């Protein structure tokens, strides 16, 4: 039998050193007797601790679990930890098996320690003692369940670095003074002041933040058990708050509504003006409150057209996508970037054309965590044509290039098959020329490489032809 003497109730370092030596010599847990402090009578009967033989390995995580378990009040903690360490030597994945009784014990005590630490972090209440030079000095009395004082010290140091403080418990004290951490013996409640001026403010806050219409004392007690109450200044108010809650909630319900304040009538009198749709600003302002169809209910914003009002070419897409919806400008997402590439190839300046969409709000459906584009319905296109018509009135382009079927419908006023309309030239009542091609997002969706190249060429030639026609018609007066 080997007897190991540990330095204190929470001597993790001592346990670790001895456990390393024991496990590396394959000494069975039943042959070890763990004790705290120097023993007495039977010392002479025990065998000496053998020197360690090489390194031992433990899985990640075990050290932290053990460090917590050592703080627990379970009197068997040191021997049970060693028994687990011993088994881990031959079964490295043991900790993953939550059905094993000793693994469950370890995780249970770890959980209890973490809870105790958490509650200590939460429920310590400092009271001010005074000032020492430029530093404020505080003290707190706390009664943890387990021996967690050393384990918790770093938390308070990290947090209350800029002040001096002491936390006194029945069995230990943690002291932080001028940047130095030290530990000392336990003390009594009387070492900490009876009160603190700020406590009155804190109690007022505690009462004011409580909603009497939602009384749920059980939920409160589950998280803040009564055993902690004696050291929480605000807890003394709880019984009274509970007793008065139902009355207060009822009073709110039966109180007759009072007359609105005078200020509210004055503010309500401020009206909105009517926007002028023949100016760009007026159009954008009016568009921002558009509710001509239901798409505005879930989209971020209406995306107005972008580009100079003198542009000779107007390009109409289908609707804003995910990025356009967030950004507020048309053609900034993947399809817009492809369009930019096409512009560069055929020599169109993006800032010389007016870019807009047939439908101004993003239509989508949510799948998992993403918004997936959905094509607009005919009625949505029709509802939104009103805006496109106003934009056309504002820009008066010589030629409109419609990208895709929705855009073609919005521009022409009836359904159009891209396959047939492509390559043709239409003339609207006001003599505006109309060309039709595919939407760049169609090119993005194509999977087949050769088809992709083919379609890309066709798209470029459509753009080329539109550009050509705009410059040919340049001499013609705009209708």
């Amino acid at each position, binding site marked *: 039998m080997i007897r190991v003497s540990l330095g204190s109730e929470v001597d993790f370092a001592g346990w670790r050193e001895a456990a390393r030596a024991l496990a590396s010599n394959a000494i069975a847990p039943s042959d070890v007797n763990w004790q705290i402090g120097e023993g007495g009578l039977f010392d002479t009967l025990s065998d000496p601790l053998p020197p360690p033989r090489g390194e031992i390995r433990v899985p990640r995580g075990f050290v932290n679990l053990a460090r917590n378990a050592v703080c627990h009040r379970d009197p068997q903690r040191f021997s049970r930890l060693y028994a687990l360490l011993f088994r881990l030597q031959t079964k490295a*994945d043991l900790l*993953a*098996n*939550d*059905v094993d009784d000793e693994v469950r014990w370890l995780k249970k005590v770890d959980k209890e320690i973490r809870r105790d630490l958490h509650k200590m*972090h*939460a429920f310590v209440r*400092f*009271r*001010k003692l005074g000032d020492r030079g430029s530093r404020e000095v*505080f003290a*707190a009395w706390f009664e943890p369940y387990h021996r967690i004082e050393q384990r918790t010290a770093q*938390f308070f140091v*990290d*947090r209350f*670095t*800029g002040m001096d403080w002491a936390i006194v418990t029945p069995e230990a004290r943690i002291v932080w003074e001028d940047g130095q951490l030290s530990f000392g013996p336990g003390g009594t409640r009387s070492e900490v002041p009876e009160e603190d001026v700020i*406590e009155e*403010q*804190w109690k*007022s*806050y*505690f009462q*004011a*933040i*409580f*909603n009497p*219409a*939602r009384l*749920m004392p*059980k*939920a*409160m007690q589950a*998280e*803040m058990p009564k055993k902690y109450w004696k050291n929480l200044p*605000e807890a003394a108010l*709880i019984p009274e708050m*509970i007793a008065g809650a139902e009355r207060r*909630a009822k009073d*709110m*319900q039966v*109180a007759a*509504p*009072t007359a609105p*304040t005078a*200020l*509210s009538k004055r503010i309500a009198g401020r009206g909105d003006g009517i926007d002028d749709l023949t100016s760009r600003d007026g159009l954008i302002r009016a568009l*921002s*409150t558009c509710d001509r169809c239901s798409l*505005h*209910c879930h*989209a*971020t914003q*209406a995306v107005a057209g972008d580009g100079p009002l003198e542009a000779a070419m107007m390009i109409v897409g289908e609707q804003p996508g*995910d990025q356009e919806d*967030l*950004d507020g400008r048309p053609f900034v997402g993947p399809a817009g970037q492809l369009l930019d590439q096409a512009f560069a190839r055929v020599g169109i300046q993006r800032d010389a054309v007016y870019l807009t969409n047939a439908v101004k709000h993003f239509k989508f459906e*949510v799948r998992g*965590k993403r*918004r997936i584009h959905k094509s607009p319905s005919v009625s949505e296109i029709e509802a939104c044509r009103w805006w496109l018509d106003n934009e056309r009135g504002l820009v008066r382009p010589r030629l409109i290039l419609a990208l895709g079927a929705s855009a073609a419908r919005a521009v022409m006023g009836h359904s159009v098959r891209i396959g047939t309309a492509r390559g043709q030239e239409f003339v609207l009542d006001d003599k505006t020329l109309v060309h039709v091609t595919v939407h760049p997002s169609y090119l993005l969706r194509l999977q087949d490489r050769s088809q992709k190249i083919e379609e890309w060429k066709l798209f470029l030639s459509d753009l080329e032809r539109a550009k050509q026609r705009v410059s040919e018609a340049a001499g013609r007066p705009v209708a």
Partner: protein
Amino acid sequence: MAKRDTIEKLEILADAAKYDASCASSGSVKRNSRATGGIGSTTGSGICHSYAPDGRCISLLKILMTNFCIYDCRYCVNRVSSNVARARFSVDEVVKLTLDFYKRNYIEGLFLSSGIIRNSDYTMEQMVEIARRLRVEHRFGGYIHLKTIPEASPELIEAAGRYADRMSINIELPTDRSIEDYAPEKSGNRIRKAMADVKGHLEAARPSRQDVRRNRKRPPRFAPGGQSTQMIVGADDTDDGAILKTSTTLYSGYKLKRVYYSAFSPIPDASKDLPLIRPPLMREHRLYQADWLLRFYGFERSEIMEGARNGMLDLDVDPKLAWALQRREKFPVDINRADREMLLRVPGLGSRGVDRIIRARRHGALRLGDLGKIVQSVRKIQPFITCTDWQPRGLTDSLHLRAQLAPKPQQLSLF
């Protein structure tokens, strides 16, 4: 008006802030004061320093800068037409209060909201100044949650994000129609626009993989705890299906960390347009459960609504069980073989229980006795699973299953 002292102001401005459900101090980066020598840290997971008898955690000093407001939102205790007492904190007062509370370990930090005074920019500017003073002048390392005032200028939003851990803007009501009816000065579009702007800043602040690889300078920080919002439940007649639709829209569009659901509760000096009901707490609870299923359990909104009736979630049983009772053909699930996705669908199994099952079954087939050691309640999951020594047989399809699993009626009384 007589000058109010700090306690009087605190009573008014905390009372006015309590209808905001969010008190989270989690989700931000880890910080400590060792290098700065100041006060304050964040641990990443948040700490609740106290609990009020309404069962809600008190983690942050949650106050309004002022409850004067030029808006007239019907559901709001601070609307311009309400006759509640008014107060306003100075910048210095909020800073001092926050530090005084923090140093005594009452709080994790500050949650600052405000009524709109003068205009959005003026209000936002004051709030940003409070955050700046705490961070810069007082080296405060605790948590700061700032409300985004709609239509505040982009520069102010950016400055707010530099100092805040989390930003939020409340959508308040689940549909644009209700927003128009109950909050005439607000609009769903403007609120979503503000969320989109914050999302833009959040993304700009995240270094790309390339930046990290090439060791480029990090972009300036912006609210590392992300953004959240709140919806009031039960003030209007919107059903749960529409509420969850709005939630999924907001989560997917603006990468929100959380949508909070707040059961509408009677307020002092309430508007006559509102139902003065008891807050629908169970409904609120079911919405949170459904929200969890959407975010962590792989459920689509349409699936959750399969367990609903007339657009409303079942109040007697949780939404996962309600779904499972409608889709019994998917069960029983073999505990020893099923993939994680399917295990997560078993009513009564949470994600931790599922993780434990997956780890433990590598060590040998699980029996009912083993499950008893690693899940919350074997009785609840039994009708939906099989394992080495258990077959539910007719139980899965039993007509009485719902009655067996639903809690006894008296437990539903929450008031």
